[in-house]
């Protein structure tokens, strides 16, 4: 077992200063963006906050680099790069939070931010009926970098443009495809975290977001259909563009949208459905991911995203789904968009069960939330989407575990007389307590007597979260497990986005209501 002392000794840290890995030096070796300048600003802010009476303070000094390329058909619409650098400081005074952020990273501005944050906390302390108590956390001094083989920011622009133009050409090569749009976004997130408890953590996360959409339009009838592939982003480098068979997907999406335009509308009614990981990930996100956020259950998001049908006392008691349903929170999952080394208050990432054998067993927590359900430590779910955003509870990767033995997709179809197989993102909408949802799909095919049949259009399925997961009677095996993700999950006020993945195999759900949305 590695002790904390061993860990600190081997993590390449010089306690007197902040060790800077090569990648950080590559961007800024001197001036206001350097690691030394960051450390100096951080120490100044924390010391000022402490001197003004803060019982706790932490600071994130972050740089976000983004590169975005957008194309349509045979032309490039936009190439842009952005950099955002700044600091955000959080302080606890008299049990109330204050926060201040500035794009000026130097000791004077950092001290001013500390003064603003303390003044905000103090002005609001009288409005607090509950004093914030934080769960214990280890003091951590380390660096962490997400796994990637090829830095996308070092790949020549024309290589990236060439990839997108080839993708468009492939899709446009399918007879009947009218429009194609494609984008790729690369994000490089570099974060330095420091707290008054002594943690000093430097992290780098690289994410790659390819996406595209095909449209078929029939100008004589005025009808059109779209097939979007938008949820494949991962915590990976440019190797994800090079190694994944994108062109096959583009050609397939071209054929699918042409078939979709000609397909017949679904007949409304009750169906057994098999949901592919490309759609099920979103159902997990909406119905499980958000309902098991403890801040929602406590009413902290009541004014925006809402509360939850899962109540604070439900852990270990609430039947969430059928016995074969196991769901885990996991911020360590390779490639997961919410995977990280440490969360935004320095808590090490981990994996834990949220639903075990159909029973709801645990929450998504932060240091502030954990004590409110009697837990000693946080599951590491604090996140801010920018140095300028207040960190708050955000969803980890929440994933459905596959069956213990291999269950191929065909086997899930084989026991269905009349059903639908649903792939890809369609419309998703769910109520503010995460009961009632409606999800569409990008491509939906009939299942007849255990066999996959023709495509149908205008279909959406509606259900109620506990009923839906209770109706789950088939889950694919390990070989069918896939990781999909959403890059812009909104929550909070002011609104913040979070990138999060959900792994799952395909799964079968019985007797689900399906609507023909064009007939309403």
């Amino acid at each position, binding site marked *: 077992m590695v002790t904390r002392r061993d860990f600190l000794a081997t993590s390449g840290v010089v306690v007197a200063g902040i060790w800077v890995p090569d990648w950080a030096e590559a961007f800024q070796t001197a001036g206001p963006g350097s690691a030394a300048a960051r450390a100096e600003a951080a120490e100044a802010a924390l010391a000022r906050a402490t001197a003004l009476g803060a019982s706790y303070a932490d600071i994130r000094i972050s740089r976000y680099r983004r590169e975005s390329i957008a194309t349509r058909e045979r032309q490039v619409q936009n190439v842009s790069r*952005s950099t955002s*650098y700044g600091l955000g400081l959080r302080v606890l005074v008299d049990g109330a939070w204050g926060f*201040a952020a500035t794009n000026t990273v130097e000791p004077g501005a950092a001290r001013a931010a500390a003064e603003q944050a303390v*003044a905000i906390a103090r002005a609001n302390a009288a409005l607090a009926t509950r004093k914030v108590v934080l769960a214990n956390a280890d003091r951590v001094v380390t660096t962490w970098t997400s796994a990637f083989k090829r830095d996308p920011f070092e790949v020549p622009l024309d290589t990236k443009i060439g990839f997108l133009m080839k993708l468009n050409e492939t899709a446009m090569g399918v007879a009947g495809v009218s429009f194609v749009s494609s984008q790729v976004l690369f994000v490089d997130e570099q974060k330095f975290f420091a707290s008054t408890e002594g943690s000093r953590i430097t992290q780098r996360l690289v994410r790659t977001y390819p996406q595209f959409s095909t449209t078929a339009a029939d100008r004589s009838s005025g009808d059109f259909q779209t097939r979007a592939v938008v949820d494949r982003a991962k915590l990976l480098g440019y190797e994800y563009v090079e190694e994944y068979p994108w062109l096959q997907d583009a050609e397939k999406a071209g054929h699918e949208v042409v078939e979709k335009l000609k397909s017949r509308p679904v007949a409304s009614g009750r169906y057994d459905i098999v949901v592919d990981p490309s759609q099920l990930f979103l159902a997990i996100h909406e119905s499980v991911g958000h309902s098991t956020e403890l801040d929602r259950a406590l009413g902290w998001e009541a004014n925006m995203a809402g509360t939850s049908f899962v109540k604070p006392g439900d852990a270990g008691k609430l039947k969430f789904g059928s016995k074969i349903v196991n769901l885990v929170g996991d911020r360590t999952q390779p490639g997961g968009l919410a995977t990280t080394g440490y969360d935004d208050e320095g808590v090490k990432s981990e994996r834990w069960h949220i639903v075990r054998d159909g029973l709801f067993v645990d929450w998504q927590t932060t240091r502030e939330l954990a004590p409110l359900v009697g837990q000693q430590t946080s599951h590491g779910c604090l996140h801010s989407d920018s140095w300028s955003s207040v960190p708050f509870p955000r969803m980890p990767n929440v994933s459905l575990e596959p069956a213990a033995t291999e269950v191929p997709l065909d086997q899930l179809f084989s026991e269905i007389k009349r059903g639908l197989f649903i792939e890809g993102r369609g419309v998703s909408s769910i*109520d503010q*307590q995460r009961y009632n949802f409606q999800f569409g799909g990008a491509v939906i095919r009939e299942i007849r007597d255990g066999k996959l049949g023709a495509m149908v259009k205008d279909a959406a399925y509606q259900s109620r979260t506990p009923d839906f997961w209770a109706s789950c009677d088939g889950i694919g095996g390990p070989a069918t497990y896939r990781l999909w993700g959403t890059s812009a999950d909104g929550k909070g006020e002011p609104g913040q986005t979070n990138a999060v993945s959900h792994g799952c195999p395909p799964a079968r759900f019985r007797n689900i209501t399906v609507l023909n949305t064009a007939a309403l």
Partner: protein
Amino acid sequence: MLTRDAALKICDTVLAHARSAGAEDAMVSLQNGIESHARFADNSITTSGRAEDLDITITVWVGGRRGAITGNDPSPDALKRISEEAVQIARVSPVHREYVPTLGPLEYPVARGFAAATADVDLAARAAALQAALTACRTAKVTGAGFHTARATATAAATANGNRRYFQTSQADMSVTARSADGTGSGYYAGDHFDLARLDAKQIAEQAVGKAVRSREPKAIEPGVYPVILEPQAVSDLMGFLNNALDARTADEGRSAFSGKDGKTRIGEPMFHPKINLYSDPMHAEMPAMPSTNEGIPATRLSLVKGGVLENFTYSRYWAQQKKVPPTPGPVNYIMESADAPVSIDEMIKATPRGLLISRFWYVRLVDPRTIVLTGLTRDGLWWIDKGRISHPVRNLRFNQSVLAMLAPWNVEAIGAPQRLSPFMVPALKLGSFTFTSISDAI
């Protein structure tokens, strides 16, 4: 916040660097914002903060090729670096086929929507406002959650062809959700204004509290098609989808609700109730907006729907050039109002034999762009109307409804007075039918 001179000096510096690096055309845009906010929940303050940022974007063209960089560092070195990097990107990019030369000098009116006090929130005054809201919730024994935010923004832009503009705008918002102690009732109310002094925290909280108390112990009704009255908040929750469909290019390309058959569009068709007007106006007294589009076209009043007829699409500069029409001077906001005197919600209720009164919608998504079918749910206050009176609260419902059918000549029965819900200003609507497809257990 950056003054006009300071902001345009940054723009000019970046333009000069870009020209030196080889840019043949260039545009710099800058946004400097200060945002202050406070959240509360469970009748207690939760988080509160202040953030200040600066975004500088340089877009250049070299040999018809385009490159763009955004940064937030105004130091001399950084301004030079982003200019040069933008030129480097342009040099390795393919020709930008939708290039339109940047704008030359143009006259812009002074923005009306700015109040200096909104830029610098007084912490004690805000605490007092929040205390008033919390007191309203505690007194009524409901659980309150809410959000108070104030933002001031300086926006500047300059082009290589001599366009220069600078605007100050501000925006303050407050919203409150109140939930009854028994968990069966919930109410929401929001207000916004460009002047923080015009936000009445107590009144907003009291509206939310009233809805929470009146919506307790709702009864279920069968999903189906019902007459409805949509409060302005509910109308604003649907408006964005209609406005998005007004893009000329999408309609011309045959993939919008306003695309017609045989390659035509539906411009000029009486698609909506003959009393409905929809327009944009930067000088509107209640809801002024920045008097420039994002592309720099000076904004003036722009009619989109007049007397129920689809009158104008919105044209970007590129698409306008392709179609040989002027780019549209907007939209910068969306104001929907009746050509006749407005009808109050009370009068609408009295004129309803049976139907639903809807406070707001939640999680609204576009199901079918061909007819703008939306799905979503009612939230925070839904009541049954029987014989001209509110009878009882109703459990929330999911809807699937086409916006085109909703606003069709035969479906709109009355139009209220528009209410500011930025960026919209919309009225209550009384509608003959609205389609609900399932019941929600959510409160």
